[in-house]
Each structure stands twice: as structure tokens, then as C-alpha cells.
């Protein structure tokens, strides 16, 4: 197959050639970025929280008229929750993974140092948190009931003992075990907190947290002395709905001076769905955009190639009369499309990378890796060949007699 005659033929159809190439280029730029966004969002939403999410229930609660210096009523409430039939365990906390916002604290190894070893999410919990969440201890032990303290509103979360995640332990103590070592939570000059346990994995409250930071988490054995709290309840299999109904009533029986919002009782599955809703939405949106875009580009190629075939029936007839086989005609159109598409993907690669760079600057997006561009390139080249096949086959069926017809 000779390329030269194809190129000289294309020179007579500059506008059409450029329009198809441009469409391929723009489609590639959008599709490879959309694929990249899809992949990023899927990676984000399939991140494990580290807890056993089935059979978990969360309850948002606000105590009416509680002053900051009053002791937390959580202890009585949690005791009432644990009495409900079907409940395996329950605890009270300021936050849990995927809830959205929570407490974060700088952590130091030296109380006077200016620099922190990291910023850790802080969960205020009691000794029931580990069994309720189903967290796996990889070293050390859980809190004991007699180690649970109370905390005022303004202070540091510098409890005498803490449990941290393995990711945070590795970050703070890269050279050895964290067990028994002190960390300093909160502002400079705080009191030491001895690490008594390390859990395998536990995510921070915000699904927005990225990378390793989302795994820097500390459990503090204190009841936070605020006027709100979340309860996390583990139920027996099949009891989730029954407990969801019984829990607000059980809490109201303790005291009516509380508010549980209308959407305050949620299964963890609902929490997860709400947390990653926009990620799911973006995946669907981008997938839809890719499919429709590819379809439109394919239709454009079919349309324009059909026109060219119609326009060149005479020339095709002449070539056939001069001895060109059907195969020659078919491969002519396939090669022609390949050349145009190649021009398109070269420009499209530049555009796609440019778009990614711009989005990196605007939306703190990550750098596009080459496999997405390559996937897009292969997809568009194949799409072009597939789209051109039907008109090309029609061209190959043009009879040599056609050469003698007109004029």
C-alpha cells in the first residue's frame, strides 16, 4: 500500500481531514482525562476504612442544655444502648470514619520541638471501640474500663495512654516498635501519651484526606465533654433494622433532653454511600461522557467517509478498471483513516496532557500517567478503523463499470 497517493488525495480534502483529526484530538484529550478521573475516584471510594462495616449503626445525638463543664452523659446512654436486644456492643465518640469532619491534632515526639511528626485524626473512645468496630490489634492491648477518663472542652487530647494505627506508628517510629513510647498530642509543651496498642488500619473521619495521612489516626480513652456525640452500635446479624428503630426510643427513655436529627440514625452502609456519593456520581458522569463522545466521533467519521466514498465513485471505478482489487480499495480507505487518526491522536496527546496540567493547577489533581493516554490512543485508532469499515466496504464493492458511466 502506497501512502503517497493517499496523502496527495487528502490534500484535496483539507477541511474534512482537519475536522476529523480535530475531533479525534479533542475526543482523545477528554477521554484520557475522563478515564483518569474515573480510576482516581474508584481508587478513592474503594479505600478500606479498617472497620468491619456490616452490622454497624451510627446515631448522631445532641444533649439539650448540657454545659461544657458538666460530665458527659455518654456513659449512661451507652449503657442503655448495650441493653437493647440484638446489640452486640456500642460506644460513644466524637467521630468515626467517613463521617466527614472531626478532630485533628498535631503530634510531636519531643514536647518542645517546633516540628511535628505528623497530624493525626483523634477519636475519643472507650474500651468498647475496638470490639464494636472490629479493629485488629497488631501489637499491645486494648484500653481497660478503668482507664477511661473525662475531658474538658478546650484542652489537648493528651491522655496518659493512646492506641494508634500501624501507619502512624511507622511514621512516628520508623526504626522500631511504637509500644511503650511517648507521643505528645496537641499544642507544644503538652503531657506525654504512652502508646499501649497498635491497630492494623483505621481511617480518619474525612473521606477528603488523601494518601498516607488518611491512615494517621489516634484513639484517646476519654469521653469528650461536648454537648454532642455519636454512638456507634454493632448489632447481631439481621438485627440492624430492629435496633435502628429501638435505639432512639431507648435513648429518649434515659432523658428527653436530647435531639436526634431526622437522619441521625444511619447504617454504616448509608454513611459510606453519603460519603462517596459525589465520587460515584463523577464515575458515572465521566463514563457516560466517554461513551457518548466515542459514539459521536465514530458517527462523524462514518458520515464524512461515506461522503468521500460517494464523491469518489468514479475514481474508484477507474482504479478497479485498471486492476486494483477490492482489497486494495478497502485498505486505501482504512489507511486513509489511520493517517488522519494518527494526526488526531498526536495532537490529542498534547491536548490531553495540557488539560491535565491545567487541571492539576486548578483542582489539585494528580499527574496523568501515560497508560491512560495510550489506552485512549488505542481506543480511538480502533474506533476510527471500525467506523470507517462500513463505508470502505461499500467503496470496495464499486464496480469497474462505474468508470465508464458518467460524462
Amino acid at each position: 500500500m502506497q501512502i503517497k497517493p493517499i496523502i496527495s488525495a487528502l490534500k484535496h480534502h483539507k477541511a474534512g481531514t482537519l475536522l476529523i483529526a480535530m475531533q479525534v484530538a479533542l475526543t482523545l484529550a477528554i477521554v484520557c482525562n475522563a478515564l483518569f478521573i474515573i480510576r482516581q475516584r474508584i481508587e478513592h471510594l474503594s479505600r478500606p476504612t479498617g472497620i468491619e462495616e456490616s452490622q454497624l449503626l451510627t446515631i448522631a445525638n445532641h444533649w439539650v442544655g448540657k454545659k461544657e463543664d458538666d460530665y458527659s452523659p455518654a456513659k449512661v446512654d451507652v449503657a442503655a444502648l448495650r441493653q437493647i436486644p440484638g446489640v452486640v456492643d456500642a460506644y460513644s465518640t466524637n467521630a468515626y470514619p467517613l463521617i466527614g469532619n472531626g478532630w485533628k491534632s498535631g503530634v510531636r515526639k519531643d514536647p518542645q520541638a517546633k516540628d511535628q511528626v505528623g497530624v493525626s485524626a483523634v477519636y475519643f473512645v472507650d474500651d468498647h471501640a475496638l470490639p464494636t468496630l472490629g479493629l485488629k490489634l497488631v501489637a499491645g492491648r486494648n484500653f481497660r474500663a478503668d482507664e477511661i477518663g473525662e475531658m474538658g472542652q478546650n484542652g489537648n487530647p493528651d491522655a496518659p495512654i493512646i492506641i494508634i494505627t500501624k501507619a502512624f506508628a511507622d511514621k512516628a517510629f520508623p526504626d522500631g516498635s511504637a509500644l511503650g513510647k511517648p507521643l505528645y498530642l496537641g499544642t507544644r509543651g503538652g503531657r506525654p501519651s504512652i502508646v499501649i496498642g497498635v491497630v492494623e488500619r483505621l481511617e480518619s473521619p474525612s473521606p477528603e484526606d488523601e494518601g498516607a495521612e488518611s491512615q494517621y489516626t489516634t484513639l484517646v480513652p476519654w469521653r469528650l465533654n461536648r454537648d454532642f456525640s455519636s454512638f456507634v452500635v454493632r448489632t447481631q446479624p439481621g438485627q440492624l433494622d430492629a435496633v435502628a428503630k429501638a435505639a432512639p426510643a431507648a435513648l429518649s427513655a434515659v432523658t428527653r433532653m436530647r435531639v436526634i436529627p431526622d437522619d441521625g440514625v444511619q447504617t454504616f452502609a448509608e454513611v459510606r454511600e453519603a460519603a462517596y456519593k459525589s465520587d460515584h456520581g463523577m464515575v458515572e458522569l465521566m463514563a457516560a461522557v466517554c461513551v457518548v463522545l466515542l459514539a459521536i466521533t465514530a458517527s462523524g467519521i462514518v458520515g464524512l467517509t461515506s461522503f468521500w466514498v460517494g464523491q469518489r465513485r468514479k475514481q474508484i471505478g477507474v482504479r478497479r478498471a485498471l486492476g486494483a482489487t477490492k482489497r486494495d480499495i478497502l485498505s486505501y480507505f482504512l489507511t486513509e483513516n489511520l493517517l488522519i487518526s494518527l494526526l488526531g491522536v498526536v495532537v490529542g496527546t498534547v491536548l490531553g496532557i495540557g488539560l491535565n496540567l491545567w487541571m492539576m493547577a486548578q483542582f489539585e489533581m494528580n499527574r496523568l500517567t501515560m497508560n491512560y493516554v495510550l489506552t485512549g490512543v488505542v481506543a480511538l485508532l480502533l474506533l476510527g478503523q471500525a467506523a470507517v469499515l462500513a463505508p470502505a466496504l461499500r467503496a470496495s464493492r464499486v464496480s469497474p463499470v462505474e468508470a465508464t458511466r458518467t460524462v
Partner: protein
Amino acid sequence: MFSYYFQLGLRSLRRNPLLTALMVMAIGFGVAASMTTWSVFRVTSGNPIPQKSSSLFIAQVDNYGQGNNDAGEPLPWLTYTDAMALMHAHQAKRQTALYAIATSAVPADPQRLAFPARGYATYGDFFAMFDVPFLFGSGWSASDDEAHASVVVIGRELNEKIFAGANSVGREINLDGVNYRVVGVTDRWEVRPRFFDLDNRGGFGVAGQVYLPFTRALDLRLKTASGITCNRDVGSGWESFLHSDCVWVSLWAELPTAADAERYRQFLYGYAAQQQRTGRFGWAPNVRLRDVMQWLSYRHVVPKEAQISLLVAFSFLLICLVNTAGLLLAKFMRRAPEIGVRRALGASKLAVYMQFMIEAASVGLAGAVLGLLLTGLGMLCVDRVFDPSIAKLAHIDLSLVGLTIVVSVLSTLLAAFYPTWRAAQVQPAWQLKSN
């Protein structure tokens, strides 16, 4: 003439229904994607208070210094100490310190459960500054602020829940076990984004239903319902919290003219310089005074999803247009002989332009109809991508319908421009000869 060209156009479009359908679908999809994302973008990027947005300013004073502040920028909130100093200086026409509060409304009927009522602790100037509409009564006075008066302004919804919608001015309401005298009931106040409350669902959360005097709220030790950021040890107890370096208060000032704003900026700078001299700040004055739109842009109120999807949708429309241009080119050039005959019979180039532009416009109109239908469908799916509080704001109104039609027709004409130009260039003699 026009209707004749329109008929010619329809006939030509009917001659090749598949090609026509492809073009209409491309335009329809492109326009619908753009309009759906635009409907979300416009609600998130709109001006919440257009009549005053350039005269309302939020003050920021760097309380942390280089290395601890937000990459050179002061944190979005102020300390209680700075907010009070700025309030007492009275350098603006009106000013209010404010923070979000979460209270519980306790109905008088002991059988009914308490329910959450979010709101703000503000100064009396708040209502006039932000043009808050009142159903009954009004805001409170400056003397109420000074007297730490136990008064409250409630929202229409709360008034309906507690007082069944009656004029409740002068009656008492129980919040968190404390009684307040109602002095005003605000009407529905659809200011979005809520530029003074951006930490609640990015400014799209439910409207506040309770407004308490700032001075009274502090007496009752009401904590902020939004963020608190602290840099140094706070100590324990309310007083030490108030006088700590924790930032949690916003300060808004009304400065009607540019000169007022400049004067206030100087004042802020002078205040920070004075704090540096007294040794409270160990760094050069680092202050900001942003008006409403600058503040919204600085705080990135428009969600990332809204921007990315708008960008993708408009690129999508662009591709659809390139596609349409290609198809129209094919369609028009196929009719070169016909054009040749028309030109030979005396039609001017302008007539050819007219004929083909009208044909393209009819494709654009058909695209607009499909686009409107698909936009309607898209609206139903908006809540799959965006936060429900934002998704419910996106809606189709007359201006969006108009915009859809205009964008659809104009973009099709744009796409048709080159093919039409080519059609008008057809040489009648050459065409007649070759046929």
C-alpha cells in the same frame, strides 16, 4: 424568501434522515450536557447579595505568623480578642462579629421533643448589613447588644414550628433551657451561597433559624458550631478559651465606598502594626479585607465537581460542533451541482449563504428541542453527582430554556459557517461543465 429557504432546508434534511439525526443528536447531547452542568455552576458561582456584595467586607488578621498561617494567608477566622478590638473601634458604617451556633429549641408543650435549631451569634447591625427580610418585628438595637439582652430573632420555619406561624414578637422561646424574648421573625432568606457561613456545607447548608446577640451568647458560653483552630495551649475553662489564640470569629464590615474600604484597610494594617509593637504579634502586619465575591473565590465555594463537569461538558459541546461541522460540510458539498444550477440561474452568493444558514439553523432548532428534553433528564440526575443541598438548587427556568435555544442555534450556525462558505464558493460554470 425565508420560508422558501426553510422548506428547502427541511427537504434537504429529509433526504438524508440518518445524517440529520446524527447532527441533531450531537447538538442535543452537547447542549444538554452544557446546560445541565451550567445550571449547577450558576447556583454555586452566583452573587448571593448583588446589591451589596461590593460594600460588604470580611476582615482577616494574621494571628499565627509565617510558617503557622495558611501558606502566607491569614486564617479565615479571627480570635475573640481581635474581633472585639475591631468591633470596639467602630471604623465602619456598620459591623458585626459573628459565629455559627447550634442550639436546641424546646417546645413549651412537654410532650414534644426538642429539635435542633442552627443559627448565628451576631450584633444588631447584622440585619441591616445583610438586608435580612423580616416577616414580623425587626432586629435588636445597639443598646440590646451592650445590655447583653436576652432577645432573639427567629426564622420563619422555627416560628411555624413553635408559634404556628403567628406574630410571635414579644413572646418567649426556650433554647437549650434558656428563655429569650422574640423581637423579630425573618422571612425566607434565600441567600446562597451563605457567604457568612461557608463552613456549613460549603455555604449551601440549611438557613440559620436563630439569631442571638453575640454578647449574650458569650455570657451563656455557647460554643461555635463551626471550626476552631488553635495554635498554642489553651488551658481550661471558658475565660482562658476566650482569650486564647484560637480563631473562630468572623468580622464583617459594611464600607459603602472604595475610599471607606481603603481607610478600613489602613486601619486594619495599623491595628496589626500596633499589635506587633506591643509584642503580641512577632511578625509584620499581615491583614486582608475581602468583599463578598473575593471572599467566595478565595474560599473556593464553587465545588471542584461543578467546575470539572462544566469544563468537560463544554469540551463535549465543542466536539459535537466539530462533528456537526464535518457532517454539514459533507452534506452541503454533495449538493455542489444544485448550487451550481442555482448560481447559474442568477442566485447571488448571499442567497446561497442565506439558504444554507437557514438549513443549519433548523438543525440547531431541532437540536435545541432535543437538548431541552435531555437537560430535563439531566436535572433529575444532578443529585447523583452533587451534594443534595446544591443539587436541589439547580433548576430549569425561563432563562435556562432561552439560553439552551440560543446556544444550540448559535453554535450550529458557528459550525455551519465554514461549510456554508465553501458552498457559496462553488463556481457555477465549473459545476455545470463537469455534469
